């Protein structure tokens, strides 16, 4: 306890403080003006993000249940930053929403859960973090209270995730039964490679694969993405996925490496299924949120390629890609939310001729798509390249071939959106979308990220350095 406690748990503590502060605000009900409330919240988030950079230390607490180090702190910062961006982008939506504070409380609880998850040293904390980051999210998915789709999305999410966590739990219980411990480090010591353990590992993997929406555990993704409010969708697609990836990078990879080569094969099968199914479904989507859902499934496949590397270069590539992915996907969602709030339009065909009245937004969207597709000079190119490069290190060039050929397919549907924006003719193109400053700010940051992250090698170098 003492000073070290505060320093090590700083991200969680600051989030908790914000939550309590918001609760207080809610109860006090002193500030009626929504935009000032929003400003306060966003400022707090910014503060939270900034604090994340200060006084980082390595260490563990609570007899190894909680541990942190440079890379974990960095990951938490990435999540905090993403949350801040999402919060900025949700400005217009939240301004109209009557449960704005509750939204933030739930959102921050999930963030808290993710932080615990990343920092967890045993399965108990991991599971708790997972649930903490899932259950409130299901509630959040229902936050478009008057929309049917939103409730449906929430239902699908809570049922599926409950089922998935049951599988996960069963796996954990078996692991516990066979190794006698919940702590990651001790589990590794008691491995015997038996079949039951293998089963347990597979169950645990599937529990997380579900959250990552790895095929065939992805079915909830599209429906939930489509139905949820856009802020929640974007949160789901970047932050909660990112958190799971981070968990993989920091803890689970070590754990699963106990499975030996099966782990690699398991990943390869998942990669192949995920990328191809994601691509095939994304090709035919009409709703742009659904489309992004499947595209994000594909992206997950690519991240798994990086993870399959198993070494630090793969982890670095995955983290790097995630940062890029946050920028790109959030830029896309930012535009979508702008459009959807003003016009209620969410179909790709609605974007026909979009460029005519919204040139800047058009370019932003196009850049986001290019980045997602991995086209230079956007950062997405570098992200994908590094992932594939990392994936090739094991000499599995068939996998690389598969991945790079699928990039072509994915280019097809990303270009569909670009085509709609720039090329397709429309009798009545979308009118000029007006938006508020915070959203513009957030989009600007995303653009900067998309363009600069690739050319500026510092971020990647930093990740590599803290991974070592």
């Amino acid at each position: 306890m003492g000073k070290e406690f505060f320093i090590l748990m700083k991200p969680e503590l600051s989030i908790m403080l914000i939550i309590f502060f918001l609760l207080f605000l809610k109860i006090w009900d002193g500030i009626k003006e929504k935009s000032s409330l929003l400003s306060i919240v966003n400022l707090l988030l910014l503060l939270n993000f900034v604090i994340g950079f200060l006084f980082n230390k390595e260490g563990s607490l609570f007899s190894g249940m909680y541990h942190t180090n440079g890379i974990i702190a960095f990951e938490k910062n990435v999540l905090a930053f993403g949350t801040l961006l999402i919060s900025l982008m949700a400005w217009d939506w939240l301004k109209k929403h009557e449960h704005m504070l509750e939204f933030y409380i739930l959102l921050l609880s999930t963030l808290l859960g993710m932080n615990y998850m990343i920092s967890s040293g045993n399965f108990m904390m991991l599971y708790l973090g997972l649930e903490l980051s899932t259950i409130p999210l299901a509630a959040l998915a229902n936050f478009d209270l008057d929309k049917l789709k939103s409730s449906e999305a929430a239902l699908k999410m809570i049922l599926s995730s409950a089922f998935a966590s049951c599988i996960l739990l069963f796996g954990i219980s078996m692991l516990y039964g066979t190794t006698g411990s919940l702590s990651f480090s001790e589990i590794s010591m008691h491995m015997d490679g038996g079949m039951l353990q293998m089963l347990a590992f597979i169950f645990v993997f599937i529990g997380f694969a579900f959250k990552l929406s790895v095929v065939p555990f992805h079915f909830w993704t599209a429906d939930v993405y489509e139905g949820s409010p856009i802020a929640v969708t974007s949160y789901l697609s970047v932050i909660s996925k990112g958190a799971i990836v981070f968990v993989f990078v920091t803890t689970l990879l070590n754990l699963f490496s106990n499975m030996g080569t099966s782990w690699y094969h398991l990943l390869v099968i998942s990669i192949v299924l995920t990328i191809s199914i994601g691509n095939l479904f994304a090709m035919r989507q009409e709703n742009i949120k659904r489309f992004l859902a499947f595209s994000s499934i594909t992206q997950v496949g690519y991240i798994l390629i990086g993870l399959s590397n198993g070494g630090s270069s793969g982890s670095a590539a995955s983290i790097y890609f995630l940062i890029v992915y946050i920028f790109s996907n959030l830029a896309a969602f930012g535009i979508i939310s702008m459009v959807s709030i003003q016009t209620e339009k969410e179909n790709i065909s609605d974007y026909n001729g979009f460029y005519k009245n919204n040139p800047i937004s058009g370019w932003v969207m196009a850049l986001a798509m290019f980045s997602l597709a991995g086209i230079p000079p956007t950062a997405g190119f570098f992200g994908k390249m590094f992932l594939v490069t990392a994936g090739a290190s094991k000499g599995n060039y068939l996998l690389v071939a598969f991945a790079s050929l699928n990039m072509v397919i994915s280019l097809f549907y990303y270009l569909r959106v670009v085509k709609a924006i720039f090329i397709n003719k429309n009798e009545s193109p979308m009118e000029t979308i007006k938006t508020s400053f915070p959203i513009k700010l957030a989009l600007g940051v995303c653009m900067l990220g998309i363009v600069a992250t690739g050319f500026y090698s510092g971020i990647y170098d930093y990740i590599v350095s803290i991974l070592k």
Partner: protein
Amino acid sequence: MLHSKLIALVPLLPFATFLLLGLFGRKYLKNFSGILGTLSLLVAASISFYAAYEYFFVVGKNAAGVYEQIIAFKFTWLEFSPGVSIDLGVILDPISIMMLVVVTFISLMVHIYSMGYMKGEERYATYYSFLSLFTFSMLGLVMASNIFQIYIFWELVGVSSFLLIGFYYDKPSAVAAAKKAFIVTRFADLGFLIGILVLAFYSHTLDFQTLIERLTNHSEYYTTITAASFMGVSALTWGLVLVFIGGAGKSAMFPLHVWLPDAMEGPTPVSALIHAATMVVAGVYLVARLFPVFALSCPPALQVVTYVGLFSSLFAAIVACTQTDIKRVLAYSTMSQIGFMMFALGVSGYGGEEGLGYMASMFHLFTHAMFKALLFLGAGAVIHYVHSNEMKDMGGLRKSMPITHITFLIACLAIAGIPPFAGFFSKEEILAAAFHSNKLVFVVAIITAGITAFYMFRLYFNIFWSKEKVIDHAHDDHSHDSHGEGTKTMLIPLIILGLCAVGAGFIPFSHLVTSDGKVLETEFNPMFSIGPVLIAVSGILLAMFMYKKANSKPDTVSKALGGFYKAAYNKFYIDEIYLFKTKKIIFNLIGKPAAWFDKNIVDGCINLSATITENIAEALRPIQSGKVQQYAIWFFVGVLSFSVLFIYFWTN
């Protein structure tokens, strides 16, 4: 020593003219372009005459009594590998000097003539620039010191010929003829190119002198090239035959002659220059250039040359008898005469007495240039006057066009081989050469000579005698209908050429141009000449009998000959065969399937892969049914299959 820089000016002057007229002619130099072109060519012609004088009489023979080959100028243009490079150079030896003179002289005549003939043309300047381009290319060709240089200029004369044939580009027939000329010769050039590649590969050089030296001496190069064989024929033979195909294309040898008659769509002076005097003999020149290799190393190839030449001359002569378009008659006659030159080369050997055919061929080339140009220019004058190419529109023109008539007659006598006109001497030498080497060739040649006399005079009588036609100028909207016989610029060349056609035969060719550069002593044998002359005269008389007065005899004869006449009239259907070959086979059997294949199979495969992907995507869609329980089932199935897979099948 020769002034080599001066020689280099000869081709460069027309080139400069071409650039000047091509770039600025239309706007700024329209009226002066004729004069400009003529002047530049006048200078060039003077230089080449001077060069000829210097070469033959000032520099003269070397100690061995041989006219040496002089490389006056050489510049590496494109070096492939050491030793193998395309050089632009000027080679001076008897035949190149001779060609230099012929080309500049005829070209000068045509330039002068065109000032009258083409007057008032909208694209007068363009015409002259093309003409200059052609002259430049032709000069480059004849002076080439490198086999690839010849090829370069070979192509350039091809394209200038294309441009000039298609000069009246808004006339579809002209465009078609131009295309045909280019494509047919291009096809032949393909042979030439591959021939070059073969020869160059084995001799490791592109330079003529080195090439000839390496392939005639029994060097290692010679051994490899004769040792290498393809389909039982040695690489050398292949190379030479392929080169000859190139020459045959340009020289309109059977069966690559089809472009020549059509090429008459071009302005008549152009026909005179390109398709009578200069370009078409390029093939002969090419064989002559490589003659040592042909003669010393590869008699079989020379055999091919002989028989192709022989057949072409006979074939063309027969066809010429039936044509009614005067320019076409002349075109076939050109083909026939070039056939003479070719087989003359073919029957020749290298050096000494054996080399008679070579000398004769060159001699005939020279004289033929004169009288054939004269014939064309004369025909041009007639056409200019009558505004038609058809014999049936002509007749009795001897009164209205006296000078043309006289010069035309001279030319006809020359080509028929009546002494003392130029054609007599050269043709005599050819026949003598044929007689000495191959009797079959001789017989066919002499028959052809008779036919030649017949059809030339058929032409002559039809134009200038026969019944008088009323030349109707009323519907003529040209402004120069009062020109009578033509302007002075048109008549002067006729007269000059007429004089040449008379006098050229007296040039002692055997002293100047021989296969090995040494003097070849030829004795003139009057006894030998009697036969051919008689045959020629009888041909003339026959023509006179049939065509001097308008009558029905020709019809009777043609009816009597029936199918043969018809076939000859239709040029033995060679054109149709080609048309069939190109239209049906190339376009329909290769082109169309290729395009179809591309569009449907290759592209189809690529589109198919896209379609398949889309269809799979479509087929998979129902999996995402929107029902959460179904999702759970998939989920659970996934769990089970992963478990089973990794626990039982894919274990460590």
